[in-house]
């Protein structure tokens, strides 16, 4: 189509003829902001500025902070990490601590930004979809509802350690099951998963899913409004991601693939 080629060429040259607003010099400002915050580069959830990312998967940031801290020989406590997260990912360097401190008191979700403390009946009533509960894990120990996150909200079920499932060093709990409405799109996965993360397609009860294990990576799903949501997965706590009829379920913990699949198969 010669017209198209000519049109494309004209459009390209038009780019140089358009009056763009002058580009501000951001380099000094960005450098100053980084210096002021003493930000350390880390694999982070923070690819979106919505309150949702700051809280929703903030727990995931704990893992990557720890991983990075290990690389930098920092040994931040979980308290410190929680503080970082409460600072909405304004990461600050801290002096080396000898050992991680015990978990601070208080509800887990409050510290890890899973949203508001809730109950299964309340959270189920607050969202439009059917909240799925894995029968192999039973009634969750805690339930959180994130209402200012993804469109239509997000529910997280928290399970403490149990037989065969240890407490994750990253989260201080056994398993997190997070649910939000959306869709999986593998087009985005290839760009976001690094070489040290394995990604394996799985099928659970006829539903498409993926098993992620290994290094942290940016994780993406398409939210209920059709917009991509960028998050990271954990380092040590592996993740099973499942599209259960339009509900994106994330099952995370120090789980084997078999355990994760078993939990996913029991979702009802």
């Amino acid at each position, binding site marked *: 189509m010669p017209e198209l080629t000519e049109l494309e060429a004209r459009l390209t040259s038009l780019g140089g003829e*358009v009056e763009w607003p002058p580009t501000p010099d*951001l*380099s000094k400002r960005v*450098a100053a902001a980084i210096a002021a915050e003493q*930000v350390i580069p*880390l694999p982070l959830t923070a690819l979106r500025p919505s309150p949702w990312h700051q809280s929703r998967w903030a727990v995931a940031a704990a893992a990557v902070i720890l991983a990075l801290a290990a690389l930098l020989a920092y040994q931040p406590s979980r308290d410190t990490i929680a503080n970082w997260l409460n600072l909405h990912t304004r990461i600050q360097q801290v002096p080396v601590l000898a050992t991680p401190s015990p978990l601070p008191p208080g509800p887990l979700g409050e510290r890890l930004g899973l949203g508001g403390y809730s109950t299964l009946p309340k959270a189920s009533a607050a969202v439009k979809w059917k909240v799925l509960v894995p029968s192999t894990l039973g009634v969750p120990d805690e339930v959180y509802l994130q209402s200012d996150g993804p469109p239509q909200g997000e529910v997280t079920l928290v399970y403490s350690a149990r037989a065969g499932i240890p407490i994750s060093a990253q989260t201080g709990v056994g398993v997190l099951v997070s649910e939000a409405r959306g869709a999986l799109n593998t087009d*985005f996965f290839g*760009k976001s998963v690094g070489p040290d993360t394995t990604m394996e397609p799985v099928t659970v009860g006829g539903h498409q899913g993926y098993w992620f294990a290994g290094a942290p990576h940016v994780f993406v799903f398409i939210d209920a409004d059709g917009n991509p949501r960028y998050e990271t997965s954990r380092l040590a706590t592996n993740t099973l991601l499942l599209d259960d009829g339009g509900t994106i379920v994330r099952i995370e913990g120090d789980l084997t693939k078999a355990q994760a699949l078993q939990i996913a198969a029991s979702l009802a």
Partner: protein
Amino acid sequence: MEGRPEDDRGLFARAQRGDTAAYEEIVQRYQQIAFRTAYAITHSAADAEDAAQEGFIKAYRALGSFRMGAEPRPWLLQIVANEARNRVRSAGRRQHLELRLAEGFRPGGAAPSPEAATVAAEDSARLLGHLNGLSEEDRLVITSRYLLELSSEETAATLGIPEGTVKSRLSRALARLRDRVEEIPRA
């Protein structure tokens, strides 16, 4: 080689190790394309500035998740474009964007052009007018791909859509633009 600018990947590798000077250099290299991309999305220079600045800061924090060896530009643009889209979303609506030709390209501008240049400028103005008249979706994909000369991958990252969708969206948008361009004005 002395005097030769360090390539982007080298800069990213240094920045990932916490070298803020390297990151400052990265910002310098990319701020124009980042700002203009954000401007095409937000339609506001102030919002674009905020989005680009915040995007660069967030990108620095997220450097650890950047895969070494990958192309840095789509990754950065994706973060900045997300910032820009969020600003549009939180504002609820965006003002209408009318891209204009720079002064030198306007016929009858301060420095009158030779006749040929004037004709060319008129052609450009007409084409830009047609582009401005397209839907936001069509305008943005064409602006990203051609006026900003983003690659297909960068356009996908900027628009937050898969690369395959960029191709089909672009082809439809170009067809609609061509219809407008070829439409014979009524005498």
